[in-house]
């Protein structure tokens, strides 16, 4: 892969992949917060307070990780997994 393509891939992973990962984090955090007995507003706010720390970390990691493939796998896979887990926890009767 050329250097230009490699950079485009990393930038896309950092922004879009990172967003998906962060989205999954919000869903899972909200679901866990609800399980822990927080109100909807509090669980959601807690997720919002934490999510940008996660996003910044994944964005920086997207550039320093050794392999771009691993970045994509972790961000997209992790994002989908957390979204699914959070949705499952939420949909299940409490």
């Amino acid at each position, binding site marked *: 892969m050329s250097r230009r393509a490699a950079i485009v891939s*990393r930038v896309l992973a950092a922004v879009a992949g990172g967003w998906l990962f962060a989205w999954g984090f919000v*869903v899972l955090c909200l679901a866990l917060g609800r399980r822990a007995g927080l109100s909807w*507003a509090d669980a959601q706010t*807690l997720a919002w307070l934490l*999510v940008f720390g996660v996003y*910044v970390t994944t*964005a920086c990691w997207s550039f320093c990780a050794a392999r771009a493939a691993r970045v994509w796998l972790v961000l997209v896979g992790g994002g989908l997994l957390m979204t699914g887990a959070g*949705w499952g926890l939420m949909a299940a009767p409490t």
Partner: protein
Amino acid sequence: MFASFRHSMTWLHTWAGLVLGYVLVVVFFFGTLSVFDREIDRWAIPQTRFAPQPMPSFDTMLRPVLERIRPEPADLAAARERAGGALPALTPVEWTAYTTHRDPVLLLYTEFALGKDPAEPDAVLYGHATIDPRDGRLLPGDPLKLGSEFFYPMHIGLHLTWHDVGYWIVGLSALAMLCALVSGVVIHRRLFREFFTFRPRKHVQRSTLDLHNLTGVAALPFHFFFALSGLTIFAGMYFPVSETLLKPQAQVAQAAEARARGLPARAAGVAAPLASVDAMVAEARRRWAARGMPGEVGMVQVEHVGDRDSVVAVYRAGSDRVALLGQAIHFEATTGRVLHEEPPATAVTGVNDFLTGLHLQQFHHWLLRWLYVAGGLAGCACIVTGFLFFVEKRKRQHARAGVGGARWADAMAVATVTGMLVATTAMLVANRLLPEALAGRNDWQQRAFWGAWLLAFVHAAWRSRPLRQAQPSPAWREQCIAVAALAWTAVALNAATTGDHLLRTLAQGYWPVAGVDLALLIAGACAAGVAARLRGRRRAPQLEGHHA
């Protein structure tokens, strides 16, 4: 892809900083202006130059105005187009009155429901009115509030309203800012020593980097918390889980929580009259005083207007604390009975309210307000010295290789940095020059802003040619002269058209206008000083060449 961790962080810092820095410096600058948005409003709308007023009587003054508010004509036309002709009858569903300790005029909003489902975003229209709370009259001509309705929206969304794309760009820039801070700390390992290092007499590349580190590190906590809180304020827009994926669960949970608080989640659909809101406001103030925190009313909101299940919420102004608004007391609108008194915030909400309040700073503390300006300007200086360093480091090499990189980075920097100052000061001049009776006066002021900025872009590109020989662009100096001339002209025009010259405003202690005038004079002096120094540098290019 990179040889080491530090290499990757250097790359990220350089390129995220350069590409999104152009947006970021605009966000920082207009954020800095927004600290004094209400004061800029006073400067721009002379008929509102009087003392801030407390919330007036709802029953006798606000309600008649709220009942007369109609949706914004443009939104109404768009809704008509979507509906393909006639619209159903518009019913107001929410009334809001909002003021702060810096507002002489009062803003009123009405939200209208179009269809059956108020949760549909397209089914809602908004209308607003600005009144003089001393007599309840509408502000004639609905003049544009330059500070709070133009510079502030520029700060949060760049006026790119199509699909909220401006908010997303600003959000991405804030994220890049956080990444730049993290990577910047990694790159500059000798952070503590660099903090105490400034060598203004060394060559340009060295002194810009010193200043970049100094402003970046000195205001690091400020930059960090403002980028972070800016993002959390709009988190609901960037991660709308409760409106999309989890909407059914959110609605069930929120309805249950509203029931637990004794508040109706939705309108009953049965018409009923509104009791005296003034009595509810008096009761809210009595309850705040009983809790040991007497205060003014910041916001009054009537939900489900005219319905049997209508609720009036009275919020306390947060002038004496960081958190913005709060301690709301909710009343049954038909009887004035207290339904719910908000308990002290939970830990999570408390932290969030603090962060939001810290960013939006509606509290009463003038010294802190000026420190915000200092922090914002330090942020601008940090980003701009970053641009300059980028160009200084590469310009000779690029000139030798015949590459345009440094040239266009420099031209973009001129166009954004001095360009936005030209645009801002040109807008203030237009505000004072355009006749009061001119039709579309608000639009013409905005055209002056964008037109001046566009000119600055063209000028910066046109004058960037010397970079090809690694020489400085004369555009920096020429636009600085334009800024100085426009800033001083704005002060002179304010004196000439309103009579509120500095001698008078200072003697009267009328700081909103005196402060804007003084800031313009100082900004003009700084721009003129920079222009003079750049002129000196232009004369001695050979000398610098010997050192290099």
